[in-house]
């Protein structure tokens, strides 16, 4: 068991039947040396995010989750098959399990699957990924008109904003947390 004042961003706790990952924890000292903690929590089952407050001494079941490094093999009938790089065991995840990670998922990509018991509860992408631009409007010479970015569809189907000089077939590096163009990838 952990007290609220000991919890940090990234910790996972169990309340009732639900698992929550702590996105943010702020501690404040109240009167009489009593304190409280404000936490931003993400429900790993529903994905909903809530702001909550606890006494610093409130106790939580601390949950240790397993991380498995797994490679994406293929998709069939709405299920995405991953293989453990060490044990070669396979695991199927659905769209809901993957969430926004689908925007960047391509075959042979390795990412961390977060597992509680045998159940996947989340995925963690690499901080940056390299993907090819599948389509973008060609830049017309001299036509800036104040624009500095244009839309580009990546090979995964996801659309981001890229500088005007990027073209179809260019490989670009993208920040997966912010969906921002980082630079060209060689």
């Amino acid at each position, binding site marked *: 068991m952990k007290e609220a004042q000991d919890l940090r961003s990234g910790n996972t706790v169990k309340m009732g039947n639900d698992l*929550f990952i702590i996105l943010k924890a702020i501690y404040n000292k*109240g009167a*009489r040396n009593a304190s*409280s903690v404000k936490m931003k929590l993400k429900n790993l089952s529903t994905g909903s995010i809530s702001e909550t*407050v606890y006494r610093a001494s409130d106790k939580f079941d601390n949950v240790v989750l397993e991380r498995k490094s797994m490679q994406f093999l293929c998709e069939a009938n709405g299920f995405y098959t991953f293989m453990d790089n060490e044990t070669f065991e396979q695991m199927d995840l659905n769209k809901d399990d993957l969430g926004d990670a689908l925007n960047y998922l391509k075959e042979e990509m390795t990412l961390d699957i977060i597992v509680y018991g045998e159940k996947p509860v989340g995925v963690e992408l690499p901080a940056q990924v390299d993907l090819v631009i599948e389509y973008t409007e060609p830049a017309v010479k001299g036509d800036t008109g104040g624009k500095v970015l244009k839309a580009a569809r990546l090979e995964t189907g996801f659309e981001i904003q890229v500088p005007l000089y990027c073209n179809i077939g260019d490989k670009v590096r993208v920040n997966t947390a912010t969906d921002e163009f980082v630079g060209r990838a060689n």
Partner: protein
Amino acid sequence: MRFSTLDLFCHVIDNYGDAGVALRFCRAFRQKHPACTVRLFIDEMKALLEITSSLDAVSPLQNLDGITIINLQSLTPEGICSIGPAEIIIEAFACHIPEWYLDKAYFTKCLIINLDYLSAESWTAGYHLKESLLPCGSAKKYFYMPGFTDGTGGILPNEPFLPCQLHRGAFPAPVTEHLCTLGYPNDFHSIAAIGTLFTYEKSFDTLLSQLNTTFASSLLLCFGNKTHIGMRNTLKRLKCLHSPGDTVFLYGTVSIALLPFFEQRIFDQLLYTTDFNFIRGEDSLTRAILAGRPFLWNAYLQDEKYQLVKVEALCSMISTYFEDYPTFSGFRKIMIEFNNQQFECSSKPSDEDFSFFFENLKNFEHATQKLCYFMEHHCNLIEKISEFINAFDFT
């Protein structure tokens, strides 16, 4: 009204504020919702006995002003079994509600409210009415943060009495009667400065000397054992006169009376009849503000003088009610000096400078009255918490 029962749990740590606020909340809530059954569960009756009359220290169940007072220390196992949870449960000041009660409450559709300490700090607004997820069951819990701004939970109002009848020098009858037994006359209007003193243990050397030099005559009404200890140690150093009984002293033009506690209502009324109030704790601070008289607040001492953070927050909040910065700056300076203690102690002389405070009583009164007006019209805790409770779905 969609609810009919409220239980408030209070854990007495020290002093009288915990019990005092708990009782005040129950009284005020019951006044707003007379059809609601209100119970106050308390684990230390002594604190309550000091500020009320007609209660005893032992009985497990008593009635006070329509509120059922339950003495947790005297509850029998049969009593515990017979108690069912209320629809609204107030957890006062982060106290721990007994497990036997929570085991039942969690599985009802009740509303649990953590009623936190009053603070002027800005972070409290961000915590106000935030949910605190429970480990099981269907009950819901929220944090409620009392405060001095619109975005917080407000302050507990005074009981209705007639402030227009409470003018300067016209003390409540029990106070006047007690002062007469100490040899005072029953007319205090001619005294140049009248103040209350209710603080943690500290020295009062400069307070007495500056009262003596500023006013032709003054009367200090001192409450609480800690105030008395500090005052006695100060007076010993100053070698002043005292009467037999060791409760009335004279230092130059300053008359000092060490008084017992009176009922909560009497003390509330007394604050309206003075020229200034030096008070401690969150509840007396609220009463002093609502009395609209100049005040200084002695905050609860915390590790590494953390109380100064609370004091600065209060000063920052109150700054907008001052007419000019120099007057506010003078107020802030004495507030910091008044609270600049690491420990409760009165063995050494004090060095605060009260001269600006006493020379600017009118300006401080003006600021306090503006603050009081805002509190009364925008920060009524009972109105705000009732609004929150009424919007809650108990089904």
